[in-house]
């Protein structure tokens, strides 16, 4: 007797045993479900703030029904109908969402030639082909962007040769015939974006063939089509993304609260995240914006430390007029870390801890990650060692420690990485730390590089428990950096928690450019710490300054007494990194003062002290890497405003941009236009083009706000 028979027997028995549903019960369930549906729909519609009055739904439904019924007809008829549908829908693409017609959502502007139409006489096979594509897609060797998108690839056999043509996109943006964005409501049901072809009435550019095609964006490949940095992708539902943030730092009165303490933050994830959101045509959620991470994304040309500096970094403080308020000043603190000669750097042990869970199976995730690591390999020296640990259902070593010069072995191991299974982040972390400890010899630097889309859904999924584990490991001298990939599921708060506790940085990698920035251009800084637990404390002089607020750093605030407490963890400064912090301060007697001085505490007669020319006093504490005791440097900040340099100006423009995105009330009438002008005027050398890109993002945000 073979096992096959057992199975057939079981199936037959099961089929026989399965009862038919009770008709009355069935009807009851269906009716109640329908009632629930109507109830849900009411609240959804309210939340959407639709401009379409509900009674107009009938109209759309009618159009939908009509199209649905007719799609089995000849293609010519269908195409014409779609064109009609387009006429109905194009004035407010948004309305599509509220109407039930999911007809025109393929984010692909393709062109059908007559021949191709002839070659595809009937739309329905497309559906079947798409379903096949669906099954095939997970196994498909998805190319890394910005190579031809997997979406195009999977749709080619199905959608009547729909093609992405760069020229089309250009033409579209030039003629301004952007029709509408189909999706993007609070509920996060993202559908895609619709373009119409320029000009010629008959809508040949829209290759929607009816019912079948709506499944096209269903390809799990989550295709991203990039053209000139414009990222047209069906945005995934943001429902499961979680962000770490806190309310804006409040205005503080110097007389009550003269001391401000915070830990430096060299993460940049927030900026990369909001860039990807803006490029998708959405404004980022305010809680996804961390102003200090935006400011710190950019390299600044601050004075570097020289032989006279006791610290491995050089702090520079500038005071200048606030761009958005003539009656206040900005105190700009720039900290530039030293860049030790590359050849002097100690050997490096890197353990790539790669999330290979099923959710990583998207072009912007695992394939991009593999590409990113490849880029980085070229920058390693023969003394360095690399190992790869994967984690999914179980953790496994994909590459035993290998010298970095053996690129063939490493490359083969990277290529062999495949996504599948759920995520056991903790098992992977343990394996990676164990391996890193094994590899570490005296004087070497070891780091675990965790690459994930943010999910730790098996084992310890509670961020605090994970934090504790990583904080424990930090004591062994092995640091952890977190690289986030892909949108839709990103647990930004978990990433932040891990990196902060692992003495590392959190970066979000959305494109190969970003991978290059994080892993190649800033390799030294990302991997070699020069100062641990760097804390900043500023005491403001109440005679000069009435009020102050720290811009950003909400998640990095420290208690005043934590400054000198070496047991309290803080951020690390990497080799060659710079860190910027900006205070907005209101001088005493300024009309911008928001809090009136107290009548009784105001004047104790002890004015005209010796500190009248000091705005405040800044102290910095840091530990040499591996040391337990911190060192202190401090110096006064002059109260005389100076003419700001371009670096400080640009930082101020970005800080303004970040506050605009957060909807901060302190900016008054100052808006995107002013931010753009300021950033433009202080672009500096901009060797890598980051600042130019930032200005483009500001423009995008400006148009999205209008």
């Amino acid at each position, binding site marked *: *007797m073979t*096992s096959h028979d*057992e*199975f057939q027997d*079981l*199936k037959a*028995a*099961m089929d*026989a*045993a*399965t009862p*038919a*549903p*009770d008709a009355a*019960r*069935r009807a009851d*369930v*269906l009716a*109640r*479900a*329908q009632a*629930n*549906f109507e109830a*849900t*729909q009411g609240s959804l*519609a309210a939340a959407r703030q639709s401009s379409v009055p509900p009674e107009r*739904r009938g109209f759309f*439904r009618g159009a*939908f029904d009509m199209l*649905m*019924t007719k*799609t089995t007809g000849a293609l010519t008829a269908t195409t014409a109908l779609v064109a009609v549908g387009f006429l109905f829908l194009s004035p407010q693409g948004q309305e599509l969402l*509220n*109407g*039930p*017609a*999911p007809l025109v959502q393929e984010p692909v502007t393709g062109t059908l030639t007559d021949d191709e139409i002839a070659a595809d006489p009937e739309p329905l096979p497309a559906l079947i082909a798409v*379903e096949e594509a*669906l*099954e095939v897609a997970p196994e498909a060797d998805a190319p890394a962007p910005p190579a031809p998108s997997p979406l195009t690839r999977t749709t080619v056999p199905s959608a009547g040769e729909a093609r992405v043509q760069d020229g089309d996109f250009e033409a579209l943006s030039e003629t301004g015939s952007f029709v509408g964005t189909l999706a993007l409501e609070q*509920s996060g*049901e993202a*559908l895609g974006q619709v373009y119409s072809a320029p000009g010629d009435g008959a809508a040949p550019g829209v290759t929607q063939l009816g*019912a079948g095609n*709506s*499944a096209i*964006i*269903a390809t*799990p490949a*989550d295709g991203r089509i990039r053209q000139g940095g414009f990222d047209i992708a*069906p945005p*995934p*539902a943001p*429902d499961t993304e979680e962000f770490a943030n806190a309310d804006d730092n409040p205005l503080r009165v110097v007389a009550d609260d003269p001391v401000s303490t915070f830990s430096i933050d060299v993460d940049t994830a927030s900026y990369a995240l909001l860039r990807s959101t803006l490029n998708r045509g959405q404004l980022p959620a305010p809680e996804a914006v961390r102003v200090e991470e935006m400011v710190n994304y950019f390299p600044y040309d601050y004075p570097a430390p020289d032989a006279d500096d006791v610290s491995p970094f050089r702090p520079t403080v500038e005071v200048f007029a606030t761009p958005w308020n003539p009656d206040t000043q900005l105190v700009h603190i720039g900290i530039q870390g030293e860049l030790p000669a590359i050849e002097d750097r100690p050997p490096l042990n890197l353990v790539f801890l790669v999330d290979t869970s*099923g959710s990583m199976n998207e072009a912007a995730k695992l394939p991009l990650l593999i590409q990113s690591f490849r880029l980085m390999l070229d920058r390693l020296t023969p003394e360095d060692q690399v190992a790869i640990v994967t984690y*999914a*259902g179980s953790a496994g070593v994909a590459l035993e420690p290998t010298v970095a010069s053996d690129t063939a072995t490493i490359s083969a191991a990277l290529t062999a990485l495949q996504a*599948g*299974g*759920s995520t056991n982040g903790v098992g992977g972390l343990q394996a990676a730390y164990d391996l890193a400890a094994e590899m570490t010899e005296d004087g070497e630097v070891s780091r675990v590089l965790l690459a994930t889309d943010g999910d730790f859904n098996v084992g310890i999924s509670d961020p605090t428990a994970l934090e504790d584990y990583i904080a424990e490991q930090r004591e062994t001298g092995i640091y952890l950096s977190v690289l986030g990939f892909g949108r839709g599921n990103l647990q930004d708060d978990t990433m932040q928690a891990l990196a902060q506790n692992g003495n590392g940085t959190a970066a979000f990698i959305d494109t190969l450019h970003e991978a290059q920035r994080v892993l190649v251009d800033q390799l030294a800084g990302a991997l070699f710490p020069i100062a641990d637990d760097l804390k900043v404390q500023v005491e403001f002089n109440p005679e000069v300054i009435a009020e102050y607020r720290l811009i950003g750093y909400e998640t990095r605030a420290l208690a005043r007494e934590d400054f000198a407490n070496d047991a309290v963890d803080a951020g690390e400064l990497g080799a060659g990194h710079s860190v910027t912090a900006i205070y907005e301060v209101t001088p005493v007697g300024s009309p911008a003062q928001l809090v009136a001085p107290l009548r009784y505490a105001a004047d104790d007669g002890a004015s005209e002290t010796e500190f009248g020319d000091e705005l405040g006093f800044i102290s910095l504490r840091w530990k040499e890497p591996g040391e337990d005791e911190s060192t202190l440097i401090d110096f006064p900040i002059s109260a005389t405003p100076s003419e700001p340099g371009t670096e400080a100006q640009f930082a101020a423009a970005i800080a303004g941009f970040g506050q605009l995105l957060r909807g901060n009330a302190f900016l008054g009438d100052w808006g995107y236009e002013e931010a753009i002008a300021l950033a433009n005027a202080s672009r500096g050398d901009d060797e890598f083009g980051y600042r130019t890109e930032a200005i483009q993002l500001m423009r995008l945000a400006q148009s999205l706000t209008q």
Partner: protein
Amino acid sequence: MRMNVSDEDLAEAAAGGDGTAFGLLLERCHDRLFALCFRLTGSRAEAEDLTQDICLALPGKLAGYQQRAKVTTWLYRVAVNAATDRRRRAASYTRATEGWGDWEVDRQASAVEASDSLDWLTRAMAGLTPTLRDTLALVLDDLTHAEVAQIMDVSEGTISWRVAEAKKKLRAMREEEEGI
């Protein structure tokens, strides 16, 4: 009118607020869903309750429906999760209520005339772990291993392994019975 519209289109239209589409979709899927629920629970009453739970909660879950998924994939995932939740809740009442586990009791109590094959089915299903049972419940719906993998959010290899494991168990059981 709409019988030639795909499930996916209906689900999408429903997610977009079309109540008729939702009704139609449910109408289409109900019986298949009920059959799956039966295979997951092993009892008619349980299956009816589970189907009801799922259907009533479905409007709220529509927002989570991604066009990237086939409707059956999405719906079955909802069903398997609901069955797991239900088992978990039931387990806190009594250890005995573990789906197919109490079938035997039920059956004897209600004196259903059980054919030999039904008898064997019951024993066979009860002899498997809940994970294997759930996997079989899906595989018996003529889904491919890849689809089942997607629904259960594990790799295809895992499903194939589970099916092989289940077959091994079934064979062992059959041999044991025949040996007696």
